[in-house]
């Protein structure tokens, strides 16, 4: 391989970027006494800074494949390259300290405080107390937990979602370039899971790790993955591509079957609220505005309802003309509560879900502090869904065409 001749490239080098972060070469795991390999000659590359999702039915070997990377399971044959370096036979403990690891059950150490849990790997690496302490606080901030409140807590004093966040913080502690995540959101209730997924994506934008993510949930794969590897038995790769391409052009009947019906609906997981234009012409008023002024704004707009915001710009109530017509109106209780709010990084699927559950015709988009940004309505979602399909199909046709030309 040419990479062995190259000087050890730093991660910002052009050469470094060309080399995938993780490369598996004919990686095989065969258990003693079993004729069939559990993982059979997997060859794949995981590019730097991307989330690669391994998805497949249970028993397909996706978790085994992941655990071959940090050698919790030792491969029978094949090679593992981390950042161009062959780590197939290096010291496994040293290797694992370079790879963040998050499992579904999280496995926080119950007798360690949150700070001690997060500090485990830095301590193994011989960091000073001061440095570990700073890093712990930094990570707690990053995962959205107040360090002064959470540093000294024990795992039993945390909720499921908080434990999950600490698990991620612990894996990030020594700033490893690679993270392995085995169904990290699998055991969490759907509402919290949705939120944690969104947080995870926001986090990844900041930390830009190379992440190998295992799940059996196609929707999760589509939502989180930069690339998805759909695996069949013995970890054979049925298709390895971007979610867009997998949805538009499934490589085989197996893939088509696996992504299942409702592929158009799944496409809504691919675009985010921030990517589309919000409706901002909806009339709004403050809760403490004078009633005649509120009425005037509603009448002067084309809208049938007006959104009331509190003093910090957070949506509170929807009111229509009839709500405002009464003789004494208390704006704090008039009309309907303003539910169905989404943040810009939510997917269109999330937005649609909010609309359907709240039976409002539109979802309210708010920023991270909860203040009003605009609206996203049903039609916008549908139009976007259609255009994604068209775009990606065209992209694929173009790719095939140019491929044919070079071949010819």
């Amino acid at each position, binding site marked *: 391989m040419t990479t062995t001749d190259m000087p050890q490239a730093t991660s910002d080098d052009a050469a470094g970027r060309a080399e995938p972060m993780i490369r598996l070469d004919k990686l095989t795991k065969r258990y003693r006494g079993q004729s069939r390999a559990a993982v059979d000659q997997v060859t794949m590359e995981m590019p730097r800074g991307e989330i690669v999702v391994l998805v497949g039915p249970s028993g397909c070997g996706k978790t085994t494949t992941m655990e071959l990377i940090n050698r919790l399971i030792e491969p029978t044959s094949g090679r593992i390259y981390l950042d161009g370096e062959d780590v197939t036979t290096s010291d496994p*403990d040293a290797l694992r300290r370079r790879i963040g690891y998050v499992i579904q059950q999280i496995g926080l*150490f119950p007798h*360690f405080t949150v700070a001690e849990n997060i500090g485990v790997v830095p301590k193994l690496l011989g960091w000073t107390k001061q440095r570990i302490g700073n890093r712990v606080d930094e990570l707690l901030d990053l995962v959205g937990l107040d360090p002064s409140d959470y540093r000294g807590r024990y795992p039993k004093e945390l909720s499921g979602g908080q434990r999950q966040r600490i698990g991620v913080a612990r894996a990030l502690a020594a700033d490893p370039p690679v993270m392995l995540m085995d169904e990290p959101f699998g055991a969490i209730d759907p509402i919290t899971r949705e939120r944690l997924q969104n947080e995870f994506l926001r986090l990844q934008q900041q930390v830009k790790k190379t992440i190998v993510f295992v799940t059996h949930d196609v929707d999760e794969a589509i939502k989180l993955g930069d690339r998805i590897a759909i695996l069949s038995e013995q970890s054979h790769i049925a298709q390895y591509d971007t979610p867009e391409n997998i949805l538009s052009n499934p490589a085989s009947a197996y893939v088509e079957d696996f992504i299942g019906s409702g592929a158009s609906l799944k496409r809504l997981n691919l675009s985010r609220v921030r990517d589309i234009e919000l409706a901002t012409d909806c009339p709004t008023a403050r809760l403490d505005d004078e009633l005649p002024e509120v009425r005037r704004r509603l009448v002067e707009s084309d809208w049938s309802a007006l959104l009331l915001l509190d003093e910090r710009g957070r949506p509170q109530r929807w009111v229509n003309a009839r709500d405002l017509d009464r003789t004494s109106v208390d704006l704090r209780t008039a009309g309907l509560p303003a539910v169905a709010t989404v943040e810009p990084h939510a997917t269109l699927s999330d937005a649609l879900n909010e609309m359907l559950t709240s039976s409002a015709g539109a979802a309210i988009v708010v920023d991270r502090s909860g203040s009003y940004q605009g609206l996203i309505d049903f039609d916008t979602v549908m139009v976007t869904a259609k255009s994604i399909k068209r775009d990606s199909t065209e992209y694929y046709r173009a790719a095939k065409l140019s491929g044919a030309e070079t071949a010819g």
Partner: protein
Amino acid sequence: MKPMDFYEYLKYNAEPLFDEAVGHVRLVAISIGIALVVGCALGVLAHRSARTRPVILAVSSTLLTIPSLALFALAIPLLGLGTPPAVVALVLYALLPIVRNTVVGLASVDQNVLRAARGMGIGSWRRFARIELPLAWPVVLAGVRVSTQIVVGIAAIGALVNGPGLGNEIFRGLRSLGSPFALNFVLGGTLGIVVVALLFDAMFILLRRFTTARGIR
């Protein structure tokens, strides 16, 4: 016997009784200390290897079924008289609860915690000392407490092989049956053992508090 007699007995025998109680405590403490080390080691071995587990558990439970009188007597030809045969016999009796609780305690450690620890690159020795043992410790300690309760009582028979302890007081009473002091001796020794047992138990409550990590208390 008038109650006054027992009070008088205590008054005039306070010093020898106290010395015997100290001897009793020391005998139990030494035996439990040895049993803790040996029992933990056997427990870890039984936990790690499925093949040795039934053997270790069977042997340690059989030991507990040997009549104590016989075990003490059997130790004499090998170790002579005095403290050594008493300690050996008591260690053998103390083993089962410690071994069994060590096995149970280690088995109750959440496998996911250990998987996470391995995945983070914590080496096997450190994993045992920092994760497995501290998490199994409350269960191990409960075993040690049961062993201690058993051994405090059995230690009385140690007097039979010239061992130290409050058993001597009881045997003095048995030897002088019929004399006016016989009951006092037996009562003194027995109550002394009860007090020693209660003191040990109180100590274990404190020990449990101070040696159990806060997150799992």
